[in-house]
């Protein structure tokens, strides 16, 4: 049996929550599907309900997001399907969207008249010598362990990369009792300041509220954590696990490394639908193109939040509201004019937040600092494809063609991790990347068979 909804939303982060509340206000039958057990998304990744964590997300920066989350959770008329991954999305001949969703308990299908994809983003995976040693994480992975399980993955942690978020993550790690050996920025200190000044002090103010890097720095100073600039890392060393990182100015002993070069949008579902995409910011990845109502190039398929380009939680929230009204108007639950009036302030807010996001992109631009690959550095870690296997076929052919002969991108992650690296190596702005295929996540055959 297939459940039917007016609107199916993929992702229960700020974008999905805001859209769902709007749609529910408009009396549309709405379901939100998320592979996490609880709503919150990346920014408010919730610990299990049995955990008691004093002061969880109490920081005032998070207040509007926590308030949104509480309202969302209290709204019982919105159907919540947690712990389920959307692994397939297609349009049936009758025009309805069909979503295939799976969980440890098996598979189900739902149909919906409209779909909103608000699937968020993930850390950019950056290969470098030693990056597959146990103990190497993406910085966001470390933060997820911390937010969701209160796990600190090391006592001598090094964070390294170009994204200022690593300051925040380092501060959260030390506050939770972890030891941080150093935070290494590849870029010179001046890059950050210059970009800030060029875009006026107002933007910089914005930086410290929406993105409390300045406060994080103070925390790190208090705990005596070294923050080095102009120190791009070159390799991670160790025999059977991480022992040290090498950067341009020397070596630092450590027991865990978090790499932080930026974030890339989740794009598998829109690409499965052949929606039009654009190359996203300097970190790479694909953003889904959309109109002023957040509708993608596919009629009836909407996108919001980081799916449209990485811009942070508040921009995600604003775009979720816009998408909610856009879908509501298309389904006739509100007039277009009224919808336009209601989204005006969200649009204005989003525009200014996007300007801020571009500033952050500029500061965090990883492109000049990607570590050099050695012949034996794995580019695709699912299929163990080393740089030496890829080099010889970088002759102008497409990413798909490289994938076919080398297996780069053929693994469990569907190429989510290696695609940005490969596209960088190919250096062809017209390459459409890997063809997105079903299923977005691996699924047991017995669940799929009739």
């Amino acid at each position, binding site marked *: 049996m297939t459940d039917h909804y007016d609107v199916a939303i993929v992702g229960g982060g700020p974008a999905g929550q805001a859209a769902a509340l709007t749609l529910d206000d408009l009396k549309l039958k709405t379901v939100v599907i998320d592979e996490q057990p609880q709503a919150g998304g990346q920014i408010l990744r919730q610990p299990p309900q049995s955990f008691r964590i004093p002061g969880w997300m109490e920081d005032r920066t998070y207040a509007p997001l926590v308030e949104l989350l509480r309202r969302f959770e209290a709204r019982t008329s919105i159907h919540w399907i947690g712990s389920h991954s959307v692994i397939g999305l297609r349009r049936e001949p009758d025009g309805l969207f069909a979503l295939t969703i799976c969980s440890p308990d098996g598979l189900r299908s739902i149909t919906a008249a409209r779909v909103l994809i608000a699937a968020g983003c993930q850390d950019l995976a950056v290969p470098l010598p030693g990056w597959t040693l146990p103990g190497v994480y993406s910085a966001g992975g470390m933060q997820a362990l911390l937010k969701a399980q209160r796990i600190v993955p090391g006592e001598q942690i090094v964070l390294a990369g170009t994204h200022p978020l690593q300051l925040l993550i380092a501060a959260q790690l030390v506050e939770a009792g972890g030891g941080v050996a150093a935070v290494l920025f590849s870029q010179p200190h001046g890059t950050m300041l210059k970009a800030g000044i060029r875009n006026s002090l107002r933007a910089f103010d914005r930086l410290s509220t929406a993105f409390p890097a300045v406060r994080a720095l103070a925390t790190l100073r208090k705990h005596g954590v070294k923050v080095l600039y102009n120190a791009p890392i070159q390799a991670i060393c160790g025999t059977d696990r991480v022992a040290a990182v090498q950067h341009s100015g020397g070596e630092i002993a450590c027991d865990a490394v978090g790499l932080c070069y930026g974030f890339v949008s989740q794009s598998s579902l829109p690409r499965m639908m052949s929606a039009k995409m654009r190359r996203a910011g300097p970190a790479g990845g694909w953003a889904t193109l959309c109109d002023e109502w957040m509708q993608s190039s596919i009629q009836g398929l909407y996108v919001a939040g980081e799916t449209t380009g990485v811009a942070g939680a508040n921009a995600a929230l604003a775009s979720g509201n816009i998408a909610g009204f856009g879908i509501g108007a298309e389904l006739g639950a509100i007039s277009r004019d009224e919808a336009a009036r209601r989204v005006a302030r969200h649009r204005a807010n989003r525009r200014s937040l996007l300007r801020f996001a571009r500033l952050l992109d500029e500061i965090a631009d990883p492109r000049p600092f990607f570590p050099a690959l050695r012949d034996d550095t794995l580019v695709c870690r699912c299929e163990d494809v080393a740089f030496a296997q890829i080099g010889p076929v970088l002759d102008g052919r497409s990413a798909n063609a490289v994938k076919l002969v080398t297996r780069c991108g*053929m693994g469990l992650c569907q190429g989510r991790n290696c695609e940005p690296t490969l596209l960088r190596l190919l250096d062809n702005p017209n390459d459409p990347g890997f*063809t997105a295929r*079903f299923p977005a996540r691996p*699924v047991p*055959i*017995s669940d799929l*068979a009739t």
Partner: protein
Amino acid sequence: MGGGLIGCATAWRLAREGAKVTVLDSGDFGMGASGQNAGSLHFQLERRFLENGDALAEQATRTAALNRLAISDWSSLEADLATNLHITMNGGLMVAETAEECALLELKIARENAEGLRTRMIDGHEARQIAPYLSEAICAAGYSPDEGHADARLVTHAIAIAADKTGALLRPRCRVQSIRRVCREYVVRTAAEQFAASQILIACGAWTAHVAAMLNLHVPLFPVGLLMNATERVAQVVPHLVQHVGRRLSMKQTHSGNLLIGGGWPSRMALDAEGRFTLYRPPAVIEASLRGNLRVAIDVAPMVATINLVRSWTGITAISADQLPIVGEIPAMPGCWVAGGGSAFTLGPTFARLIAQSMSGTKCEELEIVAPSRFAHLNSFMGQ
């Protein structure tokens, strides 16, 4: 024209004979059906020829001579190319679950044996001795010791490299835009260049009809969207090619450990703005196909159930109006050759060798059964 398995292999053969050859492809080589297929080397009569009456089965049986040649072509390909293409020819089983299917198998094997193929009927017990992963429900199988599979990811790529080394000119990302016949030559144009040739081969797979249209010709090859499924990598358990005589299934395990599951289940071809089939977007997965295909796989080899599916992909191949391949010179257009249709992975190297031989002036009787002349009536008002 067309840098798939057929185009590349023909160029390689011709260049070895000293001909001056150019291969043009609109994209990268081997990215059409030749890079999307299941890689089965199947020499038993295909199930699709058995489900449409005796006449077709009879006709298809007559292609057995081609299968015999293909067995020897695949056996020597790695040595000829001096590369490892993960070709395994450890035998193939076409299984049956019901009494009716067993009867069908018997008829099929009798036909094959009459044509000199080494298939034999084995019972369920023997099948499980050869292939312990098979279900208790399998009551018989046709066993062909020559069947197997090759890594479709690598074959066309390796042949293209060999063609290049032998002196053929390879032009990826050069779409043929027009073909003109001038006196006794053909002039083939791409966006940036033009090439004159005394003979041309249209080996454009599902696009063949489009390209033939450039010469005002019909070639009755139709695009078909198919589905393939790959599991995560697991320890080697299935060294054979496994097919089913009554249900759609092909299953094998790649060198890397993935199980590939297919067998001719349809996918839904995309339509363009005018509502015509388009070859420029991947076909969509049909859920019933996916579920049905995986069910057959589990019924035949129950251990499959617990393995994860990592990818389903769709690909487009070409099928002719009468299901048999179309390979040879077009009667209305001397010097213009065409090759495509059907299971041209298995038969591709053989078609290529025979076309190269025919283009060089030595007639090949083996190609008569698949000659385009059987559709000559379609072109009686066409050509130029």
